[in-house]
């Protein structure tokens, strides 16, 4: 990575957050910063400035002011109307003298993750503005056409402007509701990168890294510590620690029980486990904390057989109390099958058919229990149904492998 690319990765979100605050306009700020980076390619060839951040911020502000002036004179020529720059800072000198770059990323993240914006727009806007991913990169990461992402971004920015979504950190009573949305967005970004191992693996891994980076950033920006945010960080670190052990060199999905645990990232595991421990000492325990604790129990087992399934099963039970979702119930059943055997879990899984009957993992879980119970014909039927319902190539290969094993019995 060149120096400038490095600066782009680390500084884009921070400088943009300050520009939006100064200019009151997402598009204007983004265009100006893009232009500033373009100029830097030429100007920095002789050597980077001492303070790249301040240089880029100042250059972008100049460009934005030029744009405002150009638009104003264009409008004047178009009609006799007097152009008012109402919400924009009207003294350019003040902007130019100001050499420190304020950090407004907390405002930016709360605005991007405003609950009045649709979830997919929150995600796209966060990745575009805070992480500096291009529209093309976001599209590639989500396996969607670029115009789809471009349209989401345009609509989101329109709504911010037309509905007057404020650029600010919410007031204290609103923080829990708003922070929950921010965390959901971050976790969505992470899962998008983690769940699907297909497609452009590099870009998709970048989503996991961005989600972790955003969470670390949020922790440093928030004035009051938030246990669930710590838990979210722990959860992502623990999942991500298994990244290189999850997929074989030929691109096959490797189940947790079959992974080479020496390939797990011990540094991430240590950090994740330490976070979980401190949350459980101080509380309160939210859903992310429980999920992180489950991930920590997996991470602590040096061999699959040493996994503390009893405790994992109990934690899923506790999670279900906080979050009554059928997917949590399915995970609870899986843990029970490991702690007490497949016969104890099968009725729990069967009871979820009405809500999860179209979910490939419900069929795959059921198939696995039937296989372990020796009910081969039923297991084959369930694996086939799971296969029909998944579009993920890696998962399809895994299910086909299981089917082949059963056929050879």
């Amino acid at each position, binding site marked *: 990575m060149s120096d400038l690319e490095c600066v782009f990765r680390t500084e884009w979100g921070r400088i943009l957050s300050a520009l939006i605050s100064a200019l009151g306009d997402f598009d204007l700020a983004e265009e100006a910063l893009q232009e500033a980076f373009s100029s830097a390619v030429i100007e920095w060839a002789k050597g980077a400035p001492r303070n790249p951040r301040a240089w880029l911020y100042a250059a972008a502000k100049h460009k934005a002011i030029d744009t405002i002036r150009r638009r104003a004179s264009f409008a004047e020529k178009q009609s006799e109307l007097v152009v008012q720059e109402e919400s924009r800072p009207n003294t350019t000198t003040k902007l130019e003298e100001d050499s420190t770059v304020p950090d407004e990323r907390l405002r930016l993240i709360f605005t991007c993750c405003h*609950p*009045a914006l649709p979830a997919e727009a929150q995600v796209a806007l966060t990745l575009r503005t805070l992480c500096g991913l291009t529209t093309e990169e976001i599209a590639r990461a989500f396996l969607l056409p670029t115009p789809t992402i471009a349209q989401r971004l345009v609509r989101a920015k*329109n*709504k911010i402007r*037309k*509905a007057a*979504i*404020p650029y*600010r950190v919410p007031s204290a009573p609103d923080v829990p509701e708003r922070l929950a949305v921010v965390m959901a967005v971050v976790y969505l970004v992470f899962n998008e990168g983690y769940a699907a191992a297909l497609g452009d693996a590099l870009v998709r891994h970048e989503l996991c890294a961005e989600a972790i980076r955003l969470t670390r950033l949020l922790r440093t920006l928030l004035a009051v510590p938030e246990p669930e945010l710590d838990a979210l960080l722990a959860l992502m670190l623990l999942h991500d620690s298994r990244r290189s052990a999850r997929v074989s060199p030929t691109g096959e999905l490797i189940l947790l029980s079959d992974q080479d645990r020496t390939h797990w990232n011990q540094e991430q595991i240590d950090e994740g486990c330490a976070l979980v421990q401190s949350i459980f000492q101080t509380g309160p325990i939210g859903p992310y904390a429980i999920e992180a604790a489950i991930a920590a129990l997996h991470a602590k087992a040096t061999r699959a057989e040493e996994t503390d399934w009893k405790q994992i099963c109990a934690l899923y039970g506790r999670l279900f109390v906080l979050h009554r979702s059928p997917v949590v119930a399915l995970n609870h059943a899986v843990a029970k099958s490991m702690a007490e055997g497949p016969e104890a879990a099968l009725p729990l899984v069967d009871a979820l058919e009405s809500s999860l009957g179209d979910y490939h993992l419900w069929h795959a879980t059921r198939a696995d229990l039937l296989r372990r119970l020796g009910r081969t014909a039923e297991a084959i039927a369930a694996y086939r149904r799971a296969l029909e319902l998944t579009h993920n190539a890696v998962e399809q290969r895994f299910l086909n492998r299981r089917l082949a094993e059963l056929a050879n019995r």
Partner: protein
Amino acid sequence: MQYLLLIYENEKRFATGYDEGEMKEYMAFGEEYKKAIQGGNALQPTATASTVRVRDGKRLTTDGPFAETKEQLGGYYLVEASNLDDAIEMAGKIPGARFGSIEVRPIMTF
């Protein structure tokens, strides 16, 4: 008696702006009934809408104008707020937010 006259039509018609002839018609209507008209506004398109509900004492804001079909328009407030968050806060304090939903739509300025 007072009546609220609600204008329903396909908003796609206004995606590229208002027809000038039609605007004149609206002005003429306004002139003709200026004694009767107590107020009125054009609304920003539904893409700018948000919906506020309060359940179990918790406020939930979502994007879009998704009132359930079993809910019918029962009243309205036209309020001055400095931004969407302030409007959402007011919306959450309307008693009806606990039972139905409050749609928050910005007013169009011409």
